[in-house]
């Protein structure tokens, strides 16, 4: 592709603005890096280019002419192909069926030319990962890395003029990445443009010709390696924001933990391949933050402690006793409570009212009796509604009709009827307004004053800085770093997440 320009793109999903003013421009067959923090709109932009979602505003100019992209088919007409991050593969079909899916070659009449499809799939896969993936295997049986390679092979089989690779390396092993880079360079010499999305800055500096950075849905900067040195330090401020280290947050006071005892302790906890040797402990009244890039095992860690996943190796101790949570009810009975990341899917009975949503965890407790004491439970619910300032303050409100912030208050508020030993928060402020967020964290700190240990995963660094006593940075399923209260700055968090040496 000779040139590709995208001007002033914006896109919102409901109340959430994913892109506000994204601009993108490069000429000639080049490898163009696209960087940005979590939620900066990279994937939204990639999906817009591939025609998977419709823009709110903006225009594409391809090879000097205005282009209309409004469906995957129209994107393909311009030669734009996306290798998805959330894979587009069909688990129940075989590798070769997946590679040709959607652009099958027809043989005579309207039958599919399966031999051609198999040969093509075999050829492309051999170039990428010689002999490692059988084309007749079912995609459901492949490892995440293999699936990613098949996804890339599928994109390549469409002979793209511009290939968008959305975080292709997140799931790949080192030698796969090398093979991919080799292939990318070959494509470039053949005149194919590539947009390469990645969090790993060393990959960006190695493979890309130019880098464009997004922040909060806007294009904030560009680094051209033809004129500028290939240095990660040029990119970090674009991702983190020039003023990143200067924002003055209102932070919570550091909790004095000198003589409080350990509540929960993890020893060598593993979960399949996503968590490796996790060791840490949390004391009474402490807020432990979990940070790092998206998808480094943080959610698995939280779900594991909540009993939603059962860990494969390692031990968890609660108050010095072994905690074996094989089911969420085990965790709840022991006083380990979860505020899940997806409140509608995992947190609420969305067609029921506030009262029912508040009392539902009681059903798995022992000693609750057979008959519900409605008077007592109603009083408890009203008390919670008052404490969390749910609007409207009516326990008969159907949860579905509440705003996102109030829904989250219901999910969180239900644990206020007990005294949590450990409270697990999975991105509790996602998609809620500032006021609701303030209330939520105020209540969290009230709980910690009473001795609750809190484990908080948040995708925004601001929340971690404001609310945590210390933060563990996770990277590829391991705890890569620990940042103590005094070192807790945006700069340090970003650098540590991106695995850049923290400056002294």
């Amino acid at each position, binding site marked *: 592709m000779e040139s590709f320009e995208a001007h002033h793109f914006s896109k919102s999903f409901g109340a959430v603005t994913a892109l506000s003013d994204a601009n993108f421009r490069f000429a000639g067959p080049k490898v163009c890096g696209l960087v940005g923090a979590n939620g900066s709109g990279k994937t939204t932009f990639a999906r817009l280019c*591939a025609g*998977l979602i419709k823009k709110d505003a903006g225009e594409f100019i391809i090879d000097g002419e205005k282009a209309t992209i409004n*469906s*995957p*088919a129209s994107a*393909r007409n311009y030669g734009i192909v*996306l290798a*998805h991050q959330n*894979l*587009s*593969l*069909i*688990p*129940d*079909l075989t590798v070769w*069926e997946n590679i040709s*899916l*959607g*652009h*099958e070659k*027809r043989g005579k009449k*309207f*039958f*599919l030319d399966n031999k051609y499809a198999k040969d093509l799939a075999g050829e492309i896969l051999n170039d990428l990962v010689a*002999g*490692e*993936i*059988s084309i007749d*295997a079912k995609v459901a049986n492949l490892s995440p890395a293999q699936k990613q390679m098949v996804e890339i092979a*599928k994109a390549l089989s469409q002979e793209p003029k511009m290939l968008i690779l959305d975080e292709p390396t997140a799931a790949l092993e080192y030698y796969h990445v090398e093979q991919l880079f080799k292939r990318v360079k070959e494509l470039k010499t053949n005149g194919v443009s590539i947009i390469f999305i990645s969090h790993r800055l060393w990959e960006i500096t190695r493979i890309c010709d130019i880098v464009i950075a997004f922040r909060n849905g806007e294009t904030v900067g560009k680094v051209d390696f033809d004129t500028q040195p290939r240095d990660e330090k040029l990119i970090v401020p674009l991702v983190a924001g020039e003023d990143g280290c200067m924002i003055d947050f209102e932070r919570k006071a550091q909790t004095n933990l000198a003589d409080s005892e350990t509540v929960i302790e993890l020893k060598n906890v593993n979960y399949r391949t996503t968590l490796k040797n996790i060791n840490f402990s949390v004391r009474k009244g402490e807020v432990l933050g979990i940070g790092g890039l998206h998808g480094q095992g943080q959610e698995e860690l939280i779900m594991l402690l909540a009993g939603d996943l059962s860990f494969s190796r390692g031990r968890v101790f609660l108050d010095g006793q072994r905690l074996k949570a094989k089911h969420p009810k085990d965790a709840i009975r022991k006083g380990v409570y979860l505020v899940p990341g997806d409140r509608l899917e995992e947190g609420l009975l969305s067609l029921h009212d506030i009262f029912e949503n508040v009392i539902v965890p009681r059903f798995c407790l022992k000693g609750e009796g057979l008959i519900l004491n409605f008077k007592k439970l109603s009083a408890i619910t009203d008390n919670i509604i008052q404490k969390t300032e749910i609007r409207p303050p009516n326990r008969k409100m159907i949860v579905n009709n509440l705003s996102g912030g109030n829904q989250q208050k219901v999910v969180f508020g239900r644990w206020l009827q007990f005294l949590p030993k450990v409270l697990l928060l999975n991105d509790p402020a996602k998609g809620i307004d500032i006021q609701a967020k303030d209330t939520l964290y105020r209540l969290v700190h009230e709980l910690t004053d009473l001795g609750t240990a809190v484990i908080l995963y948040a995708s925004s660094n601001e929340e971690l800085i404001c609310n945590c006593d210390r933060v563990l940075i996770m990277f590829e399923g391991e705890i890569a770093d620990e940042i103590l209260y005094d070192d807790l700055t945006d700069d340090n968090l970003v650098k540590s997440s991106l695995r850049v040496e923290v400056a002294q």
Partner: protein
Amino acid sequence: MSAVTSNQGSTFRKFAGRIVKDPAFPGLIVLFVLLALNFYFQNKFFSYRILRSNFMAYTPLILVAMAQATIIISGSVDFSIGYALSLFTCLTAVLMTDTNVLPILLLGFLSILAGSGIMNGFFIGKLKMSPLITTFATMTLFWGIAQTIMPVAGGYVPRFFYKIYRVKVLGFLPFPVIVLLTAIVIWIIFSRTSFGRYIYAIGSNEEGAYASGINVSRVRFMAHVVASIFIAMAGLCLLMSMASGDFRVGQEYALNSVAAVVIGGIALTGGRGSITGAIIGAMILGLVNNIIFYAKVSAFYQGFAKGMVIVVALCVGGVPQWLKSLRR
């Protein structure tokens, strides 16, 4: 995995391995067990006469199961199938005279295509309505229409026409087998087109299919339309074997077709399983009836015995899934 050098032994092992891993395999075992039981209770089971009468009785169910399988693989479901059959028999039996057999059959086919195929497909595929609710509504609709045009079973079906069902083609092939083979050929043709692959794709991962450039709503629409061809064929067989129309005849077919599909190893969530499985499942349901009759189970317990066999068949089908979950 490295490429396996193939020789005689490993080719066989590969083939056997593929059969064992097929989701229809548990159903196949149940089918063999039932065949053996059937032979035990009814010694003449494998005689030509008995086999033929069995085919005559169970071909409609097999065809309906094929239709349901097409729909369920695409990630939808159709409960209106049964009463679409009723509608077909009532409509044709009411209008038929000695001279207009073919036009009336054509009318019946078109009404199934329009009602069961295009209407359901439009609501579910294009308007993205819930298949459960939609087909429940259209089921009631078909039932109502069938009852209106023929409140009491009967009508007229010319003798020469329904006699065709008893014809032995080339002196040995029963007519229902011909219909069945036609349906299978139609299926084989479809399975080699993009449609045959896309129904699996949209049933297995709808978003992924869309991202691959597949027109999801059109493929789901087409799944209902293609299925309606099989439904119409089932209606034809039913009409010929009963030689009359009856609005209650379809009652059992909706749930039986879903049961056949599940017994045959097709996932209710879509995307997994094969038409072969549906055929096996339908044969199992048919044989159960047969066995219970010949085992001289008291009429009081027939429902119970039939239910038990179906439950066992369903459990056997669930075993591979259960084993998989243990390994997690």
